[in-house]
Structures are given as structure tokens and as C-alpha cells.
């Protein structure tokens, strides 16, 4: 069940659609429109989005009590080794060792403490340890590519991993994803839930990727790109990347709602 037509479409066609949507978005912003903070759910250059986005407007709802709270995770939900993706097997994975760290904040800048952060990624060759990934790049027996941790009292998370490789996909002919790490985050309210992807600075694939460009505001796109931080790099060991995350959702907490 693919939404792709049988003949793969050329990159140039995707590029033209991307440029047209970008120009419209730029104009809307210049005309005083609101900054689009999230990707468009309806973003035709990403072909899989065509049949998978609601066409009716979302219904405005007040978070009732349930949505203002959220699931709780604790020490039983993570183990010490879960945040080090390079130590989950007997041997060392191949690739560029990296440390990715940052803070998870709410929109008021307050740290999101003790919440679950989950990550998954391809290996250094751009292959996921997932049966359905048929990219003919080697699997690494010493790398699974999944991790999790709880944020600390300052909202900080830290993962040790391998820099993931870019990988091909079948959105169109010669489609390649920029290197990325998938992130899943929880806040204190269920409406702060976020699943996103962290990218690496200077990736040459950014202009060609419809998933990255589904965020039509340049400033918003930049928020998904980690910064290289030399002070975070360790001599003869690893390169450091820093990426802070701000969770959308209510700034009012359940307590502040007067209950």
C-alpha cells in the first residue's frame, strides 16, 4: 500500500514543489502572517503525508484535567546503560563516537525534570536495525541504535552514540534523508508530547529533504539542528553536540488551574 506512483518521480519535481510552497510561506509571513512553528501536516512533497493528514480543521478544546497531566516514568523504566548506545553489545560499534546533550525546557524556560527521553537512529552506514529497513548498507552487530534516559533536575539529557549516516528512501528517485537522530519526549502535561528529529550542522542534504522542509519557517527549521560544541568534545574519544528542546503545550500547570 504505497502512495507513490509506480515510476519514481525526479528530485527536480520535488524541488519545484518545495520551492513553490516555500515562496508562498515566505510571502504569507512577509504579509504579516504568523510564524509557522511546526511542520505542515499537509505537505505534498512528502508523499506519505497526502493521505495521512486530517482535512478538517482541528477542533479547539480546552485541556481538561486529563490532558494537563501525563504519564510518569521512574528509575524502573530506564537502566544505567540505556543512555550509552555504544555499550549495548560486546564490541565497539563502528563510526564517529558522539555525545549529544541538552536541556528540555517548557515554553516559559523552566526545566522539564525527571521526564523520559527516548532516541533511535541508523548506524554509521545509514542502516536501521529494523527488519523492514532494506537499505543495502551493512548492519553493525555492535550497534542497535535505541536509547532512553530521564532528564535530571536541570532538565538535562545526555546520550553517547555514533553519528548516524544519511540513508536513501523511496519518496522519489534519489531521495536521501539527512543524518538525524529521532527523539521522543514527554512533559508534565500529555499535550507537551513531542516526537521529532535532531539534525547535524551543515548537512548538504537539507535542501533536498521534504521532511525537513515541511517546516516552512527557516528559523523553526534551524531549531532542529544541533550545534557542534568543541568544549563538549573529549580528547581522543568523542565529538560533542548540544541541542536544547522546548516542549510546546500549556504553560499553565494543573496546579495553577486552581485545583
Amino acid at each position, binding site marked *: 500500500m504505497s502512495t507513490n506512483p509506480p515510476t519514481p518521480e525526479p528530485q527536480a519535481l520535488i524541488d519545484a514543489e518545495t520551492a513553490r510552497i516555500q515562496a508562498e510561506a515566505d510571502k504569507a509571513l512577509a504579509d504579516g502572517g504568523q510564524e509557522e512553528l511546526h511542520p505542515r501536516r499537509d505537505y505534498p512533497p512528502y508523499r506519505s*503525508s497526502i493521505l495521512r493528514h486530517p482535512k478538517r480543521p482541528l*477542533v479547539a478544546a480546552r485541556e481538561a484535567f486529563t490532558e494537563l497531566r501525563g504519564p510518569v516514568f521512574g528509575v524502573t523504566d530506564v537502566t544505567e546503560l540505556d543512555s550509552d548506545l555504544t555499550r549495548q553489545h560486546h564490541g565497539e560499534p563502528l563510526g564517529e563516537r558522539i555525545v549529544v546533550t541538552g536541556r528540555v525546557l517548557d515554553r516559559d524556560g523552566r526545566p522539564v525534570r525527571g521526564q523520559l527521553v527516548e532516541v533511535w537512529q541508523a548506524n554509521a552506514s545509514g542502516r536501521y536495525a529494523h527488519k523492514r529497513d532494506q537499505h543495502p548498507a551493512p548492519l553493525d552487530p555492535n550497534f542497535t541504535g535505541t536509547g532512553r534516559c530521564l532528564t535530571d533536575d536541570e532538565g538535562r539529557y545526555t546520550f553517547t552514540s555514533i553519528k548516524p549516516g544519511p540513508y536513501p528512501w523511496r519518496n522519489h528517485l534519489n531521495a536521501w534523508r539527512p543524518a538525524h537522530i529521532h527523539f521522543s519526549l514527554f512533559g508534565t502535561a500529555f499535550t507537551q508530547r513531542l516526537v521529532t528529529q535532531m539534525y547535524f550542522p551543515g548537512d548538504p542534504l537539507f535542501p533536498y529533504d521534504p521532511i525537513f522542509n515541511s517546516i516552512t519557517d527557516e528559523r523553526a527549521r534551524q531549531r532542529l539542528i544541533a550545534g557542534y560544541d568543541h568544549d563538549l568534545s573529549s580528547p581522543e574519544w568523542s565529538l560533542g553536540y548540544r541541542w536544547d528542546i522546548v516542549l510546546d503545550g500549556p504553560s499553565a500547570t494543573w496546579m495553577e488551574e486552581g485545583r
Partner: protein
Amino acid sequence: MRPPTPSQTVGPFYGYALPFTEGGELVPPGHPGAITLHGVVYDGAGQPIPDALLEFWQADPDGGLDGAPGSMRRDPVTGTFAGRSGVDFTGFGRVATDAAGHWTLRTVVPGPAAPGAVPYISVCVFARGLLHHLYTRVYLEDGAGDPLLDSLDADRRATLVARPEPHATYRFDIHLQGSEETVFLEFG
């Protein structure tokens, strides 16, 4: 206010990272008051979506929203998921759809989170092709007086109410698009 970090699709390969043992079993088999909630996630062509991920969050039977930890207990020896303790009610479930787009959750009927509130189960929908998750709610009965339900016309309202089936089972299909499109919510 800081601008939020934008969302991106969960993609096709979350399956070895996010689902966990007993993710859809909020209560153990044979638990008194257990109900089964299940359904299919459909796309705009009416085709089932085999790579959607659903998360559920709800009050306990007394309406409590304190959510115990331990949804995804880890075995410190093997490093694998150990399943839930069987004692604590975490209120959180996570289920991937199967090859036929079908999902199943075993839980209990939530209590009212405030006096007089109509209970519901909050749902967050992720999928390949969906660039930003969607929220909806499952109401196990069509409660009058609920501000959201009462704001909808009958057709739309019906998309949020699970259909009772025999043996304490409820059916709740999710249509991302199309004539039966589910009501999705925007908060704030």
C-alpha cells in the same frame, strides 16, 4: 515565551525503539473490571495504516491522574523490557498497529477526573507520513454535559464515542482523513 522545537514524523522505523512489552496492557489478564478497547487506524483512501503508533493516557477508576511510574520496566540484568509490575496502574499505554492496521488496549474504565466530568481516554496518534502527532479522545459512553462533545454535531461527535461490543469490549476506529475523519483536537 520560547518558540517550541518543531515536530517531525515518527517515520517507519520506530518499531524497535518505542513499543515495549505489555505496552497495551494497562491491567493484567483477568483483572476485575478490565475492558478491551480496540480498532483500526485508516488513511484517507480507507486503507488500514500498518505503521501507526498510538499512545493512551487516562485516569484510574477513581479519577486519579497521578500515574505511577513503571509502564516500561527494564530488566537491569538482560537490558530488555520486563513488563509491568501487575500492581501499579500507570495510566499510560503505547501500542503499534499490526499489519492490518489494528491495535488493542486492555485497561479499565477511567473515573471522572473532576466531580461531574465525563471520563475519557486521551489518545496521541503518530504515524509515518504524519508530520505532527494528533490528539483525540475516546469516550466510552456518550456523556451529555461534556463541553467538547456538546460542541460537535452528531456525525462528528460519534467519531469520539467507542462502540460497545460483547464481553466488555469497545471498538474505536481512527480515520486520519475522509468522510469519517476522526475529530482531532487542538489545545490552548
